[in-house]
């Protein structure tokens, strides 16, 4: 990818002194991941442009890879955008090739280095996850004039839409060191990925480079989160240190308190309400031995474990990976023996008959059926109601009627990408009633979450009891 910086002061060629790179030749630097070149396409007294060209070794990226695998395993693929798009590779190259300039020092033009100058920078191309809007929200508060040209995915297939790549021009009166620092931090933020492992040292780096501008940036949370690769612990630490170094003023303090109050009053999340409702139903059913089918990472299992009336708890999921996470979250390895004997995780599927599931008092199927292709439900029904045949079955699923109430959800779209269907209350109830009749159960229904007069509650629950 290519980054250019244009200076229009007098004489413009002073840019060479500021960057510590002579305009008279091409400077090449070996990098771990390829080569960086600095050259000057334009050198007139009125206008001088320096270019940083990064040539990334695409084959080497795959074959000699040491860092993380990248967003969606991008770095494991030969076909990837890293050689062409500005990313953390560019940040590293900026720091290496313009190491002196980024710290604000200049051997020959120190005064100029400390002065805001009319600078224009251009990046071809910059991936903006979050679009032009985010690009502007990041740079405009720092007084840049932003021009962005978005590239289509393929001109031959306009129906494929726009790509995430922009050719971006940023103009401002700014110190060169500040410009370089902003680019250093914000390019990987826009790309939302990093080619190296992010740890505690990265927090220090962010705080150092963010000095003087990040604290007051309206997007400081987003910047911190993305820069630290969404690692919550690191982001929290960085933000505390960023903000917490000064005592908040009285006015701000009041605001903080209001926000805290809001947080308390905010209704508990739908997921928690769901678990609450399921627990209530299980308790009233008198079940002692409970199956959680499609247990996922074990949110319900954790609640069940807290209640001693549940003597045997079994979580089943089709994803082995998810079960490993559940085992970690539940600290299965460190539970006291008595607790550990109460719980078991099983890898299995709801479309195969499974003798291990027979003989339990109750089975919960929380937000699971909508992840099955509707025609395959028949197998699931028999596995659960005919063969596992527990006394009580609790099924929850989204109520599609309620989707209109979610502001961020486009009309006609489902709540989760993997949902194969979402049912209305009538659809769910007719299915449940049919199943109940077929397998000798009775069924009753309960809403979960705030109930709306016309569209009902966000989640619907069916409680089946064996007759």
């Amino acid at each position, binding site marked *: 990818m290519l980054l250019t910086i244009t200076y229009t002061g007098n004489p413009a060629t002073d840019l060479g002194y500021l960057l510590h790179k002579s305009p008279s*030749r091409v400077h090449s630097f070996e990098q771990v991941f390829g080569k960086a070149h600095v*050259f000057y396409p334009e050198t007139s007294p009125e206008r001088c*442009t320096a270019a940083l060209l990064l040539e990334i070794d695409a084959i080497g990226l795959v074959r000699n890879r040491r860092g993380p695998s990248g967003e969606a395993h991008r770095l494991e693929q030969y*076909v990837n955008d890293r050689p062409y798009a500005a990313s953390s590779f560019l940040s590293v190259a900026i720091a290496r090739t313009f190491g002196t300039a980024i710290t604000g020092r200049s051997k020959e033009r120190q005064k100029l280095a400390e002065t805001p100058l009319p600078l224009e920078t251009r990046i071809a191309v910059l991936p903006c996850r979050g679009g032009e809007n985010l690009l502007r929200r990041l740079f405009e508060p720092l007084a840049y004039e932003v021009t962005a040209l978005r590239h289509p995915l393929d001109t031959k297939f306009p129906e494929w839409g726009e790509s995430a790549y922009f050719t971006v021009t940023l103009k401002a009166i700014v110190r060169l060191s500040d410009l370089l620092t902003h680019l250093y931090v914000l390019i990987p933020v826009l790309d939302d990925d990093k080619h190296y492992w992010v740890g505690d040292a990265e927090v220090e780096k962010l705080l150092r480079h963010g000095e003087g501008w990040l604290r007051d940036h309206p997007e400081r949370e987003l910047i911190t989160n993305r820069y630290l690769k969404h690692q919550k612990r690191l982001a929290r630490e960085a933000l505390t240190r960023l903000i917490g170094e000064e005592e908040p003023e009285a006015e701000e303090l009041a605001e903080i308190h209001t926000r805290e109050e809001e947080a308390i009053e905010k209704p508990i999340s739908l997921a928690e309400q769901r678990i609450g409702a399921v627990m209530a139903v299980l308790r009233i059913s008198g079940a002692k031995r409970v199956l959680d089918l499609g247990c996922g990472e074990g949110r319900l299992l954790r609640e069940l474990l807290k209640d001693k009336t549940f003597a045997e708890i079994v979580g089943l999921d089709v994803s082995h990976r998810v079960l490993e996470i559940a085992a970690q979250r539940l600290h299965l390895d460190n539970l006291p023996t008595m607790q550990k004997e109460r719980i078991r995780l099983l890898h299995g599927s709801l*479309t195969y008959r499974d003798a291990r599931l027979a003989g339990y008092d109750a089975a919960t199927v929380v937000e699971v059926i909508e992840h099955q292709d509707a025609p395959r439900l028949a197998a699931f029904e028999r596995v659960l109601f005919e063969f596992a045949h527990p006394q009580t079955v609790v099924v929850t699923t989204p109520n599609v009627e309620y989707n209109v109430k979610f502001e961020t959800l486009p009309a006609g779209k489902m709540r989760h990408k993997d949902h194969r269907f979402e049912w209305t209350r009538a659809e769910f109830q007719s299915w449940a009633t049919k199943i109940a009749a077929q397998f000798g159960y009775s069924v009753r229904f309960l809403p979960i979450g705030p109930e709306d007069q016309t569209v009902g509650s966000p989640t619907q629950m069916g409680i089946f009891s064996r007759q």
Partner: protein
Amino acid sequence: MKLTIPELAVVALVGPSGSGKSTFARKHFRGTEVLSSDFCRGLVSDDENSQAATNDAFEVLHFIASKRLAAGKLVVIDATNVQPEARKPIIALGREYHCLPVAIVFDLPEKLCQERNRTRPDRDFGPHVIRQQSQQLRRSLRGLEREGFRRVHVLRSPEEADAAEIVREPLWNNLKHEHGPFDIIGDVHGCFDELLDLLTKLGYSVEARSNGATSQSYSVRPPEGRKAIFLGDLVDRGPKIPDVLRLVMGMVEAGTAFCVPGNHDVKLMRKLRGKDVQITHGLAESLEQLNPESPEFRATVLEFIDELVSHYVLDDGKLVVAHAGMKEEMQGRGSGKVRDFALYGETTGETDEFGLPVRYNWAAEYRGRAMVVYGHTPVPQPDWLNRTINIDTGCVFGGSLTALRHPERELLSVPARATYAQPIKPLVAATAEATPSLTSQQIHDDLLDIDDVIGKRIVTTRLHHNVTVREENALAALEVISRFAANPKWLIYLPPTMSPTETTSLPGFLEYPTEVFAYYRREGVPRVVCEEKHMGSRAVVIVCRDEDAARRRFGVIGEGIGICYTRTGRRFFDDAKIETEFLKKIHTACDAAGFWEQFQTDWICLDAELMPWSAKAQELLRQQYAAVGAAAQASLSETVASLEHLAPKIGDALVLLERCKARLNAANLYVDAYRHYCWSVQSVSDLKLAPFHLLVTEGQVHVQKDHVWHMEKLGELCKASDGLLLATPYKQVDVTDAATVEEATRWWEELTAHGGEGMVVKPMDFIARGRRGLTQPAVKCRGPEYLRIIYGPEYLLPENLERLRSRSTSAKRSFALREFALGIEALERFVRNEPLRRVHECVFGVLALESEPVDPRL
């Protein structure tokens, strides 16, 4: 002295310490057959004489004994066994595994034992121990049979012990050496006329012979080499019971038939013996008809029934016959329970709405390899379920009398001439009404059992021996199948992975035809077929003649006339309407090409490539391929422009400019490359399907046909199609002839120069064997432009190409072979009408192997 023991038995050696049991065991039995308590003491405690280890030692001993008996292996228990409580677990083992407990008793003079022990330094217990053991032995002697030992051999002197010889007898039910062919006949119940009809139909000639006024016999001549097998219940209910008995007894005596007992036969025998039995369920007819017969005849009948063996294992263990069926763990064994199962089956203890006992459906759980043929419960139609079949079609109730020909698996039947008795329960079962159109097997197959897929699995294939599926791969496959796959009843095949050619060293190429031809030449395969490789998505297509055929052959109801699914078993089309239209088009082509008649089939399964690539890979194209193209073109064209100013002035810049121009050019070619495989799809008429294997039609997996046959047949189909089906251009090559090799290489260059993906080279024969067994069923050779979308736009730049040359295809090839073998195995099992789980096991295996990480660029 000959000591006979059954070939499968649990043998207890009984005798005090020093009576010579171990020496005897060593002499007469295999080392692995003998389980010695002393040895087990040693196993658990390092001390063969440790009395403290006794409990643990016997636990180990009994555990090993159970494993051996479950596997059908003889067990000899070498312990003193002089106390009844020590012998009890041995009897229990025999009972649990349905084999006979045998005792061999060493009743030798106590003095001798004491003497022998004194010479053994490790036996440091006092003489009182042996005295006590001898006394216990003597007290036990009489009661051994009562305890449950079915045979007791007593050796009373050292000479007798020395002279003893063990003779192993085959069990009565073991007729593995009888290979038939057989005609197995269901419950006759005195329907003599129908039996004659059936025997005649089967090609037997029956002659009646009169032996004086009252007595008569039948002489039956079977067709060459064949034998009949009667499944019991010859008597009761029907009109001509004595004649049936006469005929069958005559055949058994003449060695032209075998017969197993039915519950009715046994009940009649008990009555004839004078036992008090209820005269119900048709016994009255037997008694009434036997009454005029001579007492001698009745005595012969009694003897005949008494000597019948509960069930038979025939034809090297491939066939089992019993009146009411036989579970796998009881086959070829003998015990009261086995006999009961053979006569009555098992019941759940409940009764149904007609007051009849609810039968335990052992056939639904049956996983055995032997085919089990049985009768006992009348069914409207004989119906295979998990390699079992009930052929009692209720002749006496006005149904029919049925025979199964083995090994032909052919069913023949004759209708009843009259209804001789009324069944308590109507012949048509209630379950059949609910789903009138599915067979028992299809109903059973609606749900597969997780035990048939999870864990480490070894699948036996015809083509490539045993294929092992590792547990972690099965885990991955379970998730893919459960979350995404279509109804498993459709999934009769998944395509194998395909290896590319070995890397070429030719400048400017990573793959080139030379290496493919060299590979097959090296494997000793002279003729190959080169087929153009289409760039789309692999698709398996099943099309049935109508929905009824889909129901009949696949047991699928309400899912249309077929399916098109991906290489992971997922439905290709999300939109059911498009799929219906798509299948209809192929159906029409089959009609027009006369495929249904030509192959005498009402369904076909094709292996094919579906185009355009963009139809299925939309997301991938947008996220990855087009995105990279857009980023590359935009950034490189800007770079080239900025260097162009500078190049004339600075030498280094010129070098840089040239390289960036080359990279830009590569990016443009890359975009051209993927664009070749994309076009917009508005309707089915924008799709193209290129079939390359006509995999299977009714009764035939077409792996015996060579690839030219496949191309030609599919060519006919494509010609008959309205534009959906695309015939694949191909070339035959003799790899020993430089001229045809050269010609094919030019052909490949032309194909790839015009944006083609490349070609697939297959041995002429569908299944070809090379130097070390199976050769690669196909090897792909991809064009240099196409490979840009695999190895990146700039892979052909010299410094990149050199590094990419180091790659190995061997792992990929090994997977390709195993997956190929599994795929064909799945089809062959399907064609043999095996239970779905047997087909699914193979398909699941392919998916599991696919989860193994192999370089995805290959």
